[in-house]
């Protein structure tokens, strides 16, 4: 048995994903990164929202929490603050993370709380059968964009960096080795880390947009991706229509639960010394 399989709940397989879906590839990369780091199964918590991608924790042998749509990071924040000694990993989709969960995402980044967030970006709502997400490219077809998507899409990695994430990387299900390396580094960063795992949904994004089979979609990733290291040497015209992969941002900063933990240890004293407080209650506000 490979090292990474030890982190799977093998009794829960086979999984629910469609043939050719990339979510399994991302989950596999995560288990390999975890195996390399020999993370303690009993001290690692995996949290997800709702979506095809968010079903991954059910197959992973940790304490696992499948929450509500968009809320994974907020649940994870409670876990991490309550028990900072735990390693907390969030698995989420592009819809889960950037639409309904966008607010929690940017605020977790702003706090720089030590949570590793892996966003399985398939540019579509898979679970609900192919509506456009905030990551669906302009012009793409979706069931709710029958004439082509007219909305602009996020650059998730830029969003994460701007909001304060201290480690950000992007890879695709074609670049599995890179994906695994980036997840490993993200897990080592003490702070809010985001890995954008570009993945294929052949069933909805692929079929609707005539992108071909899962293999064709992997080739599409291969052709579209440029490693950030190589990109710096390329003229802008060679980068048109391409997207960057690799380590996009690594800038450690003090981590939230550690900083707050220091405050807590400084002010700790016994409850029976509490003297009561008098607080104003006349304020008028909404």
């Amino acid at each position, binding site marked *: 048995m490979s090292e990474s399989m030890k982190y799977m709940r093998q009794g*829960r397989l086979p999984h629910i994903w469609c043939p050719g879906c990339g979510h399994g590839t991302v989950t596999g990369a995560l288990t390999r990164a975890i195996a390399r780091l020999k993370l303690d*199964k*009993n*001290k690692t*918590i995996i*949290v997800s929202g*709702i979506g095809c991608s968010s079903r991954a*924790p*059910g197959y992973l*042998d*940790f*304490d*696992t*929490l*499948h*929450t*509500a749509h968009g*809320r994974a990071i*907020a*649940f*994870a*924040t*409670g*876990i991490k*603050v*309550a*028990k900072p*000694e*735990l390693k907390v990993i969030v698995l989420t989709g592009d819809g889960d993370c950037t639409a309904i969960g966008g*607010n*929690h995402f940017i*605020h977790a980044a702003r706090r720089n709380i030590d949570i590793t967030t892996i966003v399985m970006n398939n540019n579509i709502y898979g679970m609900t059968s192919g509506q456009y997400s905030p990551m669906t490219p302009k012009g793409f077809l979706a069931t709710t964009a029958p004439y082509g998507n007219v909305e602009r899409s996020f650059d998730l990695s830029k969003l994460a960096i701007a909001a304060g994430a201290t480690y950000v990387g992007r890879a695709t299900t074609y670049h599995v080795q890179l994906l695994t390396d980036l997840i490993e580094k993200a897990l080592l960063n003490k702070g809010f880390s985001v890995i954008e795992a570009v993945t294929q949904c052949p069933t909805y994004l692929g079929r609707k947009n005539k992108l071909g089979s899962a293999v064709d979609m992997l080739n599409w990733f291969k052709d579209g991706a440029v490693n950030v290291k190589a990109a710096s040497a390329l003229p802008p015209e060679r980068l048109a229509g391409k997207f960057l992969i690799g380590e996009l941002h690594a800038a450690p900063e003090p981590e939230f639960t550690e900083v*707050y933990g220091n*405050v*807590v240890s400084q*002010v*700790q*004293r*016994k*409850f*029976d010394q*509490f003297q*009561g*407080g*008098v*607080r104003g*209650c006349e*304020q*008028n*506000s*909404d």
Partner: protein
Amino acid sequence: MPNAKLMQGNEACTLGALAAGLEFFAGYPITPSTEIAELCAEELPKLGGKFLQMEDEIGSIAAIIGASLTGKKSMTATSGPGFSLMQECIGYSSLCEIPIVIINVQRMGPSTGMPTSPAQGDVMQARWGTHGDHPVIVLAPGNVKECFELTVRAFNLAEKYRVPVIVLMDEVIGHMREKVILPEQSSIKVVNRKAPAAPGSYVPYAADPNGGVPDMAPFGEGFRWHVTGLFHDETGFPSNKGEVADTLLRRINLKVEKNEPEIRDYAVEGVDDCDTLVVTFGCSAMSALSAVRQARKNGIKAGLLRLKTIWPFPEATFDGIMGHVKRVIVPEMNLGQLAGEVERAVARRAAVERLGKVNGELFRPEEILSVITNGAARTAEASK
């Protein structure tokens, strides 16, 4: 006199939470509940606990559910608009059986309403705000001391039955100051959830289908269990089998239904011989009590039933006191939310008169007294 202090309801509520073992608070500021968050921010760290101001109320309730899963007693506090935002995750807590306490200091709604005016309009939302049949317990303190006591009780019930417990306060109770004698910590009964002994044979949701409460393992202790808001079987993993859903939904609801007599809590005055019964809760009960006392001085056989547990609704309580009752009056700061339940419980044994007040002003005792004396303008019959 040990521990006698002048404090407001929001303060007493926070102290009750701390006495019950609160270790984690997450919230978002909103009038008239904010003092609870402020006091938690100040006091929790002193006890080694954690305070978190989240980006919104959805995040707040999500965070306390996460914290509760690590074994820490967790709470949030809010008011109308925030309480509305929390509804989806209240259902998550109900279905996944994760104990949490939510303080809702009611203000006038709907919408932003009148933020600093008292109201009691969340009676039904507290019971039915989230989708689907779900268990929930709702307590309603009627004075500052009870804010302390019922918050302790809220934690105990949440831990015992693994349900969300809502403490339904209101702007008056939350901001009113009274002199309160706090009990010694050693005399306070504190209940903790039952945890499984050791990993290995742990079946997370194994429990008597007839309303049993499963043991709850804290995250991070080697149990490696799965929690999902999908219907799940005893193992905790999702199932879409109809009989699994049926068994689960009935069991979690029976936890509260079957234990209603234990959860039931109320105060009465003059109910042994009364022919006019006033039924109410929270801030309205303060005025109702004066009105009932004055009516009795005036020779009217009035009585008061003040509910401290609103949900599950204590229907059976009415059987014991309806003996001579000909009229039931339900003053409340909404348009008849409790009255509807009272009508159900009274079951046509007496006329139920709805006395709803929604102008943001507390009942004056004379208003209630005048209805006791002269009959209400609108009776239950007339309103049909």
